[in-house]
């Protein structure tokens, strides 16, 4: 049996996080883990993808029981049978397609998210470092990375942010372009606001943290890499900043229309991007109607996320077509690869047989034209006998036992000489003329 590629694993679709976390493998331990897997499950090749959303074994083996051994290896930390219904398995082309879909982020919780590609690349590097990759898995994942790149460049699967932090960042870029040196003001100490502010700071923005408690502002500023400000500085800081994120626990508007009228004047109408992540809201919604002020609250950000997600799902259909076509190409390559040793062996057999006959004939050549011709004709007969003896014997035996498939196969292999009355045989070509 030729070596077959398979995948066994579980993901967020089939198992709860409580189960997945028991199977977690830290990135640093991946090379050692994949080496253990290779030996303990007796696989020819192996690759282990372990992220918070999935744990999967990609293996190559020539026996049908290999995937069962891989399942057993996966169950080791939780006990035999504990993964049962949570596990899925794909074989051959379906396994390849699964690898392509995972790398292209089509099987991710957030379709199009970029992290999974990095995680699969880490798994590939670990398997490579652990000496667990051979021709099939190596080629499969090299293609998977190329497919992921193609999917990202040819479809809009990754366009449009889907998390509050990245939407805030996208919006800020849509207003200001480059965020390098822009001032971001974080008002309040909400977790989501902190996360969005950090995301913007990563893009090069300067962060200022404003809180009722100066001590809390100090702590947060240290945690986010920003500068603390007191609540009394709200108006002056709003006049200076480019992006303000309101995330307080106040039950009244912190940023009112009256305050913003002064702020807009002081800013000389420079655009201001206001993100209100607080519930109840911190910013009076009428502020959003003012010129050059762009106000987004939690619901707005949620709607944007939903729209972007829908757009990504539409794009995912095009991405699936790319994956399907690439998986088919890979399968074609694999079939060719499986045949290669046979083709090499056939050619070598014929070459060795012919070379032996040639060696036997050469000493007998005397220079006499007629004698040499007779010797060469004997050599040809001997070559033909030796090369076609076994195939002819097999065709005869097959015909005796009524196995017409072999006979038809023979007519397809030698269409030029096949008789026309064999059912399933291709049309007979013109006979090859012997040179005289």
């Amino acid at each position, binding site marked *: 049996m030729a070596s077959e590629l398979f995948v066994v694993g579980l993901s967020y679709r089939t198992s709860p996080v409580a189960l997945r976390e028991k199977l977690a493998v830290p990135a640093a331990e991946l090379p050692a883990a994949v080496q253990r897997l290779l030996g303990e499950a007796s696989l020819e090749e192996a690759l282990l993808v372990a992220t918070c959303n999935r744990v999967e074994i990609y293996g190559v083996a020539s026996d049908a029981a290999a995937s069962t051994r891989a399942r057993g290896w996966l169950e080791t930390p939780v006990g035999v049978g504990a993964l049962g219904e949570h596990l899925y398995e794909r074989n051959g082309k379906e396994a390849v397609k699964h690898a392509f879909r995972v790398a292209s982020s089509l099987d991710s919780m957030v379709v199009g998210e970029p992290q999974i590609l990095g995680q699969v690349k880490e798994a590939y590097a670990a398997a490579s470092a652990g000496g667990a990759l051979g021709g099939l898995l190596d080629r499969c994942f090299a293609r998977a990375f190329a497919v992921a790149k193609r999917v990202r460049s040819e479809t809009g699967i990754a366009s*449009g942010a889907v998390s509050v932090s990245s939407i805030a960042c996208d*919006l800020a870029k849509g207003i200001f372009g480059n965020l390098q040196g822009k001032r971001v003001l974080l008002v309040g100490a909400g977790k989501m606001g902190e996360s969005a502010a950090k995301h913007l700071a990563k893009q090069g923005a300067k962060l200022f943290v404003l809180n009722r408690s100066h001590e809390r502002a100090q702590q947060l500023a240290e945690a986010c890499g920003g500068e603390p400000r007191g609540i009394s500085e709200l108006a002056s800081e709003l006049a200076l900043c480019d992006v303000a994120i309101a995330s307080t626990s106040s039950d009244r508007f912190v940023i009112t229309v009256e305050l913003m009228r002064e702020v807009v004047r002081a800013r000389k*109408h420079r655009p201001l991007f206001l993100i209100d992540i607080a519930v109840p809201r911190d910013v009076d919604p009428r502020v959003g109607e003012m010129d050059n002020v762009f106000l987004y609250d939690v619901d707005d950000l949620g709607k944007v996320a939903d729209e972007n997600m829908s757009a990504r799902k539409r794009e995912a259909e095009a991405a699936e077509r790319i994956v399907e076509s690439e998986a088919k190409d890979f399968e074609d390559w694999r079939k060719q690869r499986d045949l290669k040793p046979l083709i090499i062996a056939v050619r070598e057999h014929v070459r060795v047989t012919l070379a032996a006959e040639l060696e036997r004939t050469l000493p007998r050549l005397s220079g006499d034209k007629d004698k040499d011709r007779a010797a060469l004709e004997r050599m040809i007969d001997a070559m033909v006998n030796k090369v076609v003896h076994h195939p002819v014997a097999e065709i005869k035996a097959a015909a005796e036992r009524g196995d017409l498939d072999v006979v038809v196969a023979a007519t397809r292999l030698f269409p030029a000489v096949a008789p026309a009355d064999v059912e399933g045989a291709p049309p007979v070509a013109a006979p090859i003329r012997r040179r005289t």
Partner: protein
Amino acid sequence: MTPASALFGLTVLLYVVAWSVEVTFLFRGGESVARRGAMLLAPAAACHLAFLALSIDDMHATDIHQVLAIGSFLLVVSFLVAAWVGRAKWPKLPVLAAFITPVTLLFFLLAGFRRGVGTVPDDVRSLVLPIHIAVNILGEVAFALAFAVAVAYVLQERQLKKKKLTGLFQRLPPLETLDTLGFRLVSVGFPLLSLGVVSGALWAVRLDPSAPAIGATQTFGLIAWLMFGGVLLLRIAAGWRGRRAAIGTMLGFACTCVLLVGYVVRGSGA
């Protein structure tokens, strides 16, 4: 059909094709469509140049059609150069081709509606006229570019206010970039227009001292001058920017267009 008229037709066709690709990108399609759309302007500009080379002999120094044909060529070339030079800093600039191409096409088509050419008597020829024409062409190019930027600004601002962040929003350049570009272009165009208005008035007096200083068409020139001056003044003095400045720019450009159409309809000098 003369070679010049064949080139005119081909140029119009290429501009129309480029514009259709640019508009397609504006509403759908990937980055490659935007690049292709902008790239399609290059052969159109080459044809345009060939047309100018063939027609230049037929054109007269005071001919409004010549002004429009040269102006529209300079407009498309300056846009292509800006998009190429600024490709790293402003990667989304090629999308503005969707707003610049129709203006170019309009000017070029107006250049094709020739109604007879006014001549300048030898005794009143002076340096004022070429200066008047040159600064007006350059000013109009700057305002046409500013107009395209302003249209993009208004659309982008609308997307942000309406909270529609797919499609157009993703393709148009950031608001601040558009605002800055618009301001710079008006800053360049305004002194040229001012010089154009002054030289125009001087020329008019020289041509016919008894004629009224300001006719119907010149009124639009003055309105445009006031509009652009207002946009600049309010921006510098009161920080007037964003949508209002963009709309002011669009109205100012519309006035200059009315002025040009007026000259074309009248079918005489610049």
